[in-house]
């Protein structure tokens, strides 16, 4: 039983990070219909900024993280302004190809600036692990799960209860009509890019101790966040979060109890079956946006 909970715990830890990244994807997708394929690269870049502030400039860990989050804020804003907004009249396919191009640009920039080596980056909390009835719990894992919960709670409050949330959800449902109600939809786009980039940066920084900081560090998180979003349903905001947690936990349980070598195949096999049964994702309603 202890092993079971050990795996659940590990699953929640990585699942939380998939969920954060997935929420960023969905936020951009719901408001502007664009799928940001470069989300992972952007997160990697922000993580490098955190690492450089910490290791290169010798800032304290919290300051380095705050610095990186401020960078992410500007980064999201600039990417939307320079690459996405000028193409606002272009077809969706073109916009997605722009975000594919961003992978090249950001990946290239990162290797030029930060090099292609991989670096160890410390955990957020480096206290000793706690033994809870046979389950070894790392304070850092608890911290990751807690911070994800706090961020989610804050975001869901914002989306469901505030005026900004009304603007986001109205834009997500019908952009033209939102404009007719006086909702500044371009500000909504801009804000969703900023929030998504910050979410990505947080996921990247918290992932770094496991993957090390390198230009390819986010590849797996990014892919899994996509799958989390598809599994939970792109049409809702809470679906992808639960999707992320499911993937994190399944990954660990299948690896433990069935087969480590076959775990990827089995987990994604299950996902494909789920999508065959429910193509809109577990929590998805048919998402159709009027244009």
């Amino acid at each position: 039983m202890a092993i079971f909970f050990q795996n659940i715990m590990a699953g929640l830890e990585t699942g939380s990070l998939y969920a954060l990244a997935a929420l960023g994807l969905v936020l951009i997708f719901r408001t502007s219909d664009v799928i940001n394929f470069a989300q992972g690269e952007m997160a990697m870049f922000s993580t490098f900024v955190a690492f450089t502030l910490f290791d290169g400039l010798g800032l304290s860990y919290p300051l380095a993280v705050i610095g990186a989050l401020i960078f992410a804020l500007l980064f999201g804003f600039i990417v939307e302004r320079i690459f996405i907004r000028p193409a606002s009249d272009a077809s969706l396919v073109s916009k997605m190809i722009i975000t594919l191009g961003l992978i090249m640009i950001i990946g290239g920039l990162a290797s030029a600036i930060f090099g292609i080596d991989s670096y160890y980056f410390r955990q957020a909390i480096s206290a000793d692990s706690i033994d809870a009835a046979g389950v070894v719990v790392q304070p850092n894992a608890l911290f990751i799960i807690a911070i994800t919960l706090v961020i989610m709670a804050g975001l869901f409050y914002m989306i469901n209860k505030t005026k900004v949330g009304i603007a986001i959800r109205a834009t997500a449902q019908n952009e033209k009509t939102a404009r007719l109600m006086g909702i500044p939809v371009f500000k909504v786009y801009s804000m969703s890019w900023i929030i998504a980039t910050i979410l990505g940066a947080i996921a990247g920084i918290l992932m770094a101790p496991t993957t090390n900081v390198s230009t390819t560090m986010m590849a797996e998180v990014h892919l899994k966040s996509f799958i989390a979003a598809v599994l939970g349903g792109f049409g809702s905001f809470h679906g992808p979060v639960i999707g992320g947690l499911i993937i994190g936990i399944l990954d660990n349980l299948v690896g433990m109890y069935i087969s480590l070598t076959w775990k990827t195949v089995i987990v994604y096999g299950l996902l494909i079956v789920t999508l065959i049964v429910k193509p809109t994702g577990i929590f998805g309603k048919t998402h159709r946006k009027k244009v």
Partner: protein
Amino acid sequence: MLKIENIDAYYGFIHALKDFSINIEEGKIVTLLGANGAGKTSTLKVISGLLNPVKGSVTFNGENLLIYPPEKIVSMGIIQSPEGRQIFPQFTVEENLKAGAYTRKDKENIAKTLDKVYDYFPRLKERKKQYAGTLSGGEQQMLAIGRALMAKPKLLLLDEPSLGLAPLIVRDIFRIIEEINKEGTTILLVEQNAYQALSIADYGYILETGKVVSEGSAKELLGNSDIKKAYLGGN
């Protein structure tokens, strides 16, 4: 109040409005009539700032509207209830109405306007917690008008409020439109249902392929035999 002078506007390659002019006086109901593709909806898009004309001018109480984005035009008091209702289906009725008040800063008065809207449309009050996507066509139209009223419009733009509705409901809705106007809101009413529209309007413009082909007081238009033949169906 609102003056459109000599505008030309394009939808891609389609010349939607050609040397087009209309004038809306404060306190009136003005109607734009015509078939599909005559330029009615394009006119509303130009006023709301969703379509930019290549030449000509649009002024609201003397102020040039063409330099403003849609959200600014809304906050100036020009609100559109779009064609096909376009309610937010995943919002409840009340959330839709609150979205309509998005630009308002006078928080304490929003509740008053909400009551006012519920007075006009008691049906909406009964269904305020219901998702808007589950409403009937007539209720959705009421919601679309109610949502526009939440912004406290000075000029209300209504695009085809009778579209797809049963005659009885259309009559209801037109009665309420008249009431809204009597309480001080100027209205630009775009309609294919010419007879209904002229029966409540003060002034009308008849549009064909992006041009005004005829205009006059509602009475004149109702009495004009050519117009009767072409738009009012019969003698």
